[in-house]
């Protein structure tokens, strides 16, 4: 099984030698809450707005002197680009994460897949399910079922 078109997005990244203030400003200008930290095109960490805020403020650090390496989570769980949605969901659930970096055979970052997009995809499936119910009801009422259906009169 492979990904439906458009589910793998272009990743937002920063270099591992960036400082916390520049990373915060990058998040602000792109209006995003997490970045993949890369070193020579390979993902070496993931950092969220919360990670940076709580590390810098909690430890009273100078945000320009604090490197992103000190804020990031370096346990990167990546998805091979040949994997599908079920493997992505499985990895997200098992690791409690919402975004997965997608890597090629050589471990280079090629994209990102987010649970939000998977959820929206699911919402679309639910809409289709609602239309199944609608069809069921209209089929029954057109066959003159003895059971009156309010929805059949929509």
């Amino acid at each position, binding site marked *: 099984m492979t990904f439906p078109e458009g589910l793998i997005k272009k990743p937002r990244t920063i270099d591992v030698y960036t400082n916390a203030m520049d990373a*915060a400003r990058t998040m602000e200008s792109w209006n995003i*809450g997490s970045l993949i930290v890369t070193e020579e095109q390979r993902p070496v960490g993931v950092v969220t707005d919360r990670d940076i805020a709580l590390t810098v403020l*909690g430890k009273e650090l100078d945000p320009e002197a604090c490197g992103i390496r000190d804020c990031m989570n370096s346990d990167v769980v990546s998805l091979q680009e040949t994997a599908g949605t079920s493997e992505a969901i499985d990895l997200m659930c098992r690791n409690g994460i*919402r975004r997965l970096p997608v890597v090629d055979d050589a471990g280079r970052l090629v994209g990102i897949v987010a649970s939000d997009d998977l959820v929206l995809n699911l*919402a679309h499936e639910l809409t289709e399910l609602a239309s199944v119910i609608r069809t*069921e*009801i209209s089929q029954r009422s057109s066959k003159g079922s003895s059971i*009156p259906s*309010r929805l059949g009169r929509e």
Partner: protein
Amino acid sequence: MEVIRTDSSAHAAANRMNHAAVGCLVVVDLEDRPVGILTDRDLLLRGVAQSHSPHELHVADIMTPDLVHATPAEPLEELLKLMKNHGVRRIPLVEDDRVVGIVAMDDILQEFSRDLNELASEAPLRYRNAPSHSRFEHVRHGIERNLGELRSKLEYAQWYAKATLIDELNELRNRLDKETEVHS
């Protein structure tokens, strides 16, 4: 629900969020009246991104004032509308100028899912004598399958995705509700 005073330091706010494992604090003034909200995102944007010594800032400098709030009697549907209209995902509940609780979009979604799940499990009993029982079984299985998947994804979803899902769930719930009424 975690509360912090306007005169507390940003450093104290960060530590409170960390230890309580929350992403938002309700801000109260010196008389304990709710006056704003402070999220971890506020700490980043108004603290780290803008100041060289952000730990010297105070909560009043970086909070979001003009608190969007509701009373504890507000129905869930109204709370959801407030969240969507103001682009927020948490609403503090205020009574007599005191904050008495907070409702997150996650809570509303869970409430809706629970209702829908109950309806789905009641369906075969209610439709036992209905002529198209097997069709409803099919629909019920579909819903249960989707709810199962849904539950595993919910906690990782952002608020706008949740808002979409809540609408879908509400729509499904209403349809099932009406059908259940008709058949019972």
